[in-house]
């Protein structure tokens, strides 16, 4: 079967079973669906058991701070059809709760542990040790975009002194020529 036909079949079947799925096609062997977060476990289960997407390639999370949402991406791979499907879903940033899917794929447990720690997303019914990568961490979930790692590092870890005499090239030239940069232009400095 050609890749296009396979894709059409998949889209048809998914749309039949999951009315909220919005598809987006990409070139070659990629196919995206956006679904509501409640649909995620069932669509994943359906894809795995009914459509041969046996391999869970990846689970990722993106913080869209400005939109107040987390985007979660599940990437599945079908070893038979050689096609990958992306499942996108959005989770409210202020109340990030997701369904746990580690009964579908055991290894999802690890991803969920990480996301819980790094983004503060709660997975209902996730059984795992509290800490994953961090130890004795008491700041906000560090991968959230509003956490400023540079400021944290500067505050927490001592830095070797001796570099305070560095000059800014632009300012040096400015000073020499007597140029006065207006306040509003400063944000365009490199």
């Amino acid at each position, binding site marked *: 079967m050609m890749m296009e036909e396979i894709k059409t079949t998949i889209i048809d079947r998914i749309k039949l079973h999951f009315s909220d799925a919005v598809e987006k096609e990409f070139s070659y062997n990629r196919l995206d669906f956006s679904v509501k977060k409640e649909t995620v476990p069932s669509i994943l289960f359906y894809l795995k058991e009914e459509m041969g997407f046996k391999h869970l390639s990846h689970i990722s999370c993106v913080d869209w701070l400005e939109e107040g949402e987390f985007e979660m991406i599940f990437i599945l791979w079908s070893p038979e059809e050689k096609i990958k499907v992306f499942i996108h879903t959005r989770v409210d940033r202020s109340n990030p709760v997701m369904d746990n899917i580690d009964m579908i794929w055991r290894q999802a447990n690890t991803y969920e542990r990480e996301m819980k720690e790094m983004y503060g997303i709660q997975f209902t019914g996730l059984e795992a040790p509290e800490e994953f990568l961090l130890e004795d961490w008491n700041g906000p979930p560090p991968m959230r975009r509003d956490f400023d790692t540079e400021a944290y590092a500067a505050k927490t870890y001592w830095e*070797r002194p*001796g*570099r305070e*005499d*560095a*000059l*800014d*090239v*632009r300012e*040096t*030239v*400015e000073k*020499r*020529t*007597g*140029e006065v*940069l*207006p306040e*509003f*232009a*400063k944000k*365009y*400095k*490199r």
Partner: protein
Amino acid sequence: MSFDLKGTLKPLTALKQFGQKPHTLTNVPFIPREAADRYRGLHYNNLDECIGCGNCSTICQNQAIDMIPVDGIEGKNGDSGLRPRVDHGRCCWCGLCVDVCPTGSLSLTKDYVYVSEDANSFLWTPGVDNPEGDERVSFFSTKETSLNDLGRIPMPELEGMERIKSFAEVVLGYNEEQARAEASRCISCGLCTEACPEHMHIPEYINAIAGGNDEDAVRIIYDNNPLPEMCGKVCTRRCEDICAIAHRGDPIAIRWLKRYATETVENADLLKEIINPEIKEPNGFKVGIIGAGPSGLTAAYYLALKGFDCTIYEANSKAGGMTMYGIPRYRFPEDSLDKQIEYIQKIGVRIHFNTKVGKDISFGEIYHNYDAVFMGVGFPKPWTLGIEGEELHGSIQAVNFLYEINNGKKVDIGNKVIVIGGGNVAIDAARVSARLGADVTILYRRRVQDMPADWEEIEGAEAEGIHIISQAIPIQFHGDEKGHITTVEYLKAEMVPDEHGGRPKPIAIEGSNTVIEVTAVLGAIGQQGDYSFLEEEFDEKVKIERGRIVVNEKQETTLNKLFAGGDSANRIADAISAIADGYRAVKGIEELLMKGK
């Protein structure tokens, strides 16, 4: 109880290695091993080539590179005077700093061993602390591997032969996409601001354009230049000469980007809305300005913003001075400045057109009526060649020629024109003549590469079919019995190096006389000032040296409360330095008048 005989004995064959030569490198660590030819080891910086642009410091994701002053290196035009110092407690030897170095001065060497018990000793300046690294350079960037965008986005232009059919503007201007792409080439080092006489905030407005904020770009440009459209079209752009990228490739098209930014604003009302200048309450002082050239307009604009009451007296019917009347329309269309002049008038500057000082109004009147006077009168009078036959009919001064043409008058030049000179005026005259249908030849004393005109102009001229005869010194014009010029006689010249280290001088070769037939000759070897409007009482007080009014760093002349700028006061004699003069004069005037307040 099976026994795997093969499996037991076969491994024993490994013991044969006992007799083989060991693979160990015994010299290590006592004699360092030579690294590969491309090895990324410790840094080396060629301090003479380095221009201190700080691009290495910007690209470094580890913030390992600081720019620091180094003994023995002074900042100058095109060199910040700073040199990179590398914190080897941060460096990851990725070599990105090398790949982005616009001059290629920074490189990595084959040295890789540095061991110390002192943690603070890992902070050192390449090239200063390892001058011997020169010979061990291994990882360097070339034009080919450089990460800088070396190629300029080509400016859309009319086709060469299409151009000479009319006076339509040759340069079409960038569209948005092109402008963004061109602006993205900039590495924002800001060295160009030093070359700019007006010290415009170049990297900032380019960054604004690159980031898609054209309005901010306009606002930044207007911060110290009220005539960006003029600069955007005809600036001599010293900034581009020293552009960091120009060391390897084409400089950023700073001028075109400025032009793009100003062109995004459609009319004066919008301009005012975007810039939204803060105009101070009128402070009661009146300033008179002679000449609505770049310097005069600049002074008027910023003085007006500061609450001064400004009046400009302009001899012609349009503002812009030499840019308006000396530059042909295909480079600088007539309506170019309308929007800006209108805007300047909108914020309260009065301009009296067609009012020639010395004829329509006396200088004395102005001087006595105003609290301060700024004078930007330019260089209206051409130099003459001073050779035989110059008075012949058909021997025309290029400046006058351009003035007439720009005023819409006709000048009869026939079909075979010689232009003498190598400056922008000469090229302009030649290209205008070509548009009038003449076959044009330029005679220039030195070589083509010595021509002071913009290279783009020269290329443009050549594209339009204009011949250039270099190393040619005209010695005589011959005319017919009607007093009309017929031929030009010139000598070939050879270039002799100057013993004082200046640029080579052309020396005429005896007997190499050549004669060309012509219908007209346009002389373009320079202009001079005309200060005849100064009445006697002032004439003595205003000190003039070698044709130029002497001013101090605040543009103040030797006459009290008289300020001067533009061609008549500075040697560079281009629009942007005139603007700079005007801008400086504003400060001088403000200081003079507001002293007590």
